[in-house]
């Protein structure tokens, strides 16, 4: 392996070369920063990266090299450059949620997900641009300007994890962390032609993720390939005492899903050697009529309405045909309450946000604007100067639906309908469906500035938000292009069944081959 073709390499290949001493971590840092410079990842061009420090990253590379030299278990991400969304706390680089209210803030602690990446040998190279406080679907709500899509710079990169998806699509890193509340990893991944995964609620610790809507928030992974996403999630998943909603359910080795077999028993010694990087994952067989034998894939009619863009529909039908050719059974299903998901989400998420964002008041951290007229005036001046238009709108929307007289009609009602939406998913999986396939988005990436109506922007999440409300895992995989823009297909599975989700995703990626990007 050579760093010359860094932008094409998967994380597993990079890590194995570093562990074998064939590639120096410092050369990978230089390759990543060179790529970022060549493509114009800074604020005046694509605006992908908000914060980076090459000198600090080179010091991190030296530590990794020392671990290689001392023959320690460096980890499955040895020497892999990784980018982190700007709402995930990291030591050394600022964490500002792309907001003026946190300008210059450097967290004194680190998110568990980032600590686990570093413990497995990863090197943090950048904090990426995003919609302010993850509120948006285009990264146009960043206080530092929109991220441009590396595939077509006239278009948005999607959001809210637009910078992370663009960083991977541009070849700056093979893996990036994003976060999801309503589709904020999957939608930008679909727009940029890369893979994006949102795990089951509770699968990944939220410790260090700046809270937006705590009952929905999850850290997710953007990858150059399904394997990159599987490897990244495998590392960051698992119980964490610092997050009381994190689960103690065992984490399988998701990369073994590529072999097209059920998950091995937990704590099997052979597979544990793979987990820590001592043994490689066996090479998967090429796609065959048996790859998905016995797998039932549901096609929900509510996600294929008559109004669906024909380009998106045709690419989804091609993907479904590939599933059939690999032995899967396609079953027409219904998730009847899914059309209610956008109204439910845009009541619950702003309600939770209005509470979570109360902490940004100019007292403990971040911006303070003090007009000299007392405490209340300082609160109002600080928050008005620090929050952008969409964040202000959502705080007010959330305050309204929680206020006396409206609580039952909006907030409590939305919580009950959320139960019905989750029940729809439970029923489908209980009836023998192993995975659900849908388009990730109703359209490909749209031009910057094209959508000004807030509710029209909210509709971008129409196919992704149900998985957040139900708490189930979902992944977006490239399934082709229309008008030269990437299109994503979404695979959803039952709670904590990321293994089956990855199995179907690996098969789809292999079954489509180069067509996934054509």
């Amino acid at each position, binding site marked *: 392996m050579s760093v010359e073709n860094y932008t094409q390499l998967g994380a597993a290949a990079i890590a194995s070369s570093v562990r074998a001493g064939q590639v120096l971590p410092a050369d990978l840092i230089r390759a990543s920063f060179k790529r970022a410079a060549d493509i114009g990842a800074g604020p005046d061009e694509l605006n992908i990266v908000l914060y980076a420090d090459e000198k600090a990253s080179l010091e991190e590379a030296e530590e990794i090299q020392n671990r290689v030299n001392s023959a320690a278990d460096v980890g499955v991400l040895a020497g892999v450059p990784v980018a982190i969304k700007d709402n995930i706390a990291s030591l050394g680089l600022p964490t500002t949620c792309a907001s003026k209210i946190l300008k210059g*803030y*450097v967290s*004194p*602690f680190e998110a568990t997900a980032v600590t686990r990446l570093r413990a497995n040998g990863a090197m943090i190279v950048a904090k990426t641009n995003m919609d302010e406080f993850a509120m948006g679907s285009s990264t146009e709500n960043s206080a530092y300007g929109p991220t441009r899509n590396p595939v077509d710079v006239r278009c948005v990169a999607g959001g809210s994890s637009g910078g992370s998806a663009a960083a991977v699509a541009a070849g700056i890193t093979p893996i990036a962390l994003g976060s999801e509340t309503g589709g904020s990893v999957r939608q930008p991944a679909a727009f940029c032609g890369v893979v994006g995964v949102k795990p*089951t*609620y*509770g699968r990944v610790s939220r410790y260090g993720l700046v809270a937006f809507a705590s*009952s929905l928030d999850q850290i997710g992974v953007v990858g150059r390939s399904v394997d990159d996403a599987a490897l990244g999630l495998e590392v960051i998943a698992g119980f964490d*005492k610092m997050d*009381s*909603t*994190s*689960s103690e359910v065992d984490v399988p080795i998701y990369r073994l899903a590529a072999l097209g077999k059920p998950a091995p028993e937990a704590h099997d010694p052979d597979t544990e050697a793979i987990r820590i990087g001592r043994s490689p994952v066996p090479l998967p067989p090429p796609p065959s009529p048996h790859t998905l034998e016995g797998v039932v894939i549901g096609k929900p009619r509510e996600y294929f309405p008559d109004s669906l863009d024909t380009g998106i529909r045709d690419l989804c039908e091609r993907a479904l045909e590939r599933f059939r050719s690999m032995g899967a059974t396609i079953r027409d299903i219904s998730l009847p309450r899914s059309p*209610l998901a956008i*109204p*439910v989400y*845009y009541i619950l998420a702003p309600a939770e946000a*209005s509470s979570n964002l*109360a902490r940004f*008041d100019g*007292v*403990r*951290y971040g911006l*303070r604007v*003090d007009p*000299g*007229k*007392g*405490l*209340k*005036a*300082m*609160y*109002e001046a600080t*928050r*008005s100067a620090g*929050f952008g238009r969409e964040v*202000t*709108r959502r*705080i*007010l929307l959330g305050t*309204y639906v929680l*206020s006396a007289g*409206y609580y039952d*009609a*909006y907030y409590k009602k*939305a*919580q*009950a*309908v*959320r*139960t*019905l939406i989750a029940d729809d998913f439970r029923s489908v999986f209980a009836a023998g469906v192993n995975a659900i396939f849908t388009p990730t988005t109703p359209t490909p990436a749209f031009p910057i500035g094209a959508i000004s*109506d*807030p*509710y029209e922007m*909210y509709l971008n999440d129409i196919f992704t938000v149900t998985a957040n*409300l139900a*708490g189930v895992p979902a992944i977006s995989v490239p399934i082709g292009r229309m008008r030269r823009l990437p299109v994503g297909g979404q695979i959803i599975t039952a*709670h904590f069944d990321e293994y089956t989700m990855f199995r179907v995703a690996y098969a789809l990626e292999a079954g489509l081959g180069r067509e996934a990007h054509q």
Partner: protein
Amino acid sequence: MAVTREDVLHIAELARLGVDAARAEELTKELSAILAHMDVLSQIDTTSVPTTAGIGSGGTPLRPDVGVSPLMKGTLESFAPSMRDGFFIVPRLATHEDPSESGA
């Protein structure tokens, strides 16, 4: 349900957000338009449906009631807007203040 200008000013005060007259007019229209899309939920019968406040984790268990030191690598002074003797300094409350002394 249409939102009024008075509603906007009321919730802005609750949320500690200063909103000027022009922005209050805009927000009145924007929030009314968004909430109009939520009215569809009123048609759903949820009489016997339990509410969902969180998903999949079995609730939020309580940890032992003992003090835990924050895992901080930096000091409060490194990011707080104003500190003195280990305390965050805030402006005086309006009811007690002398404007010439406020702002800590």
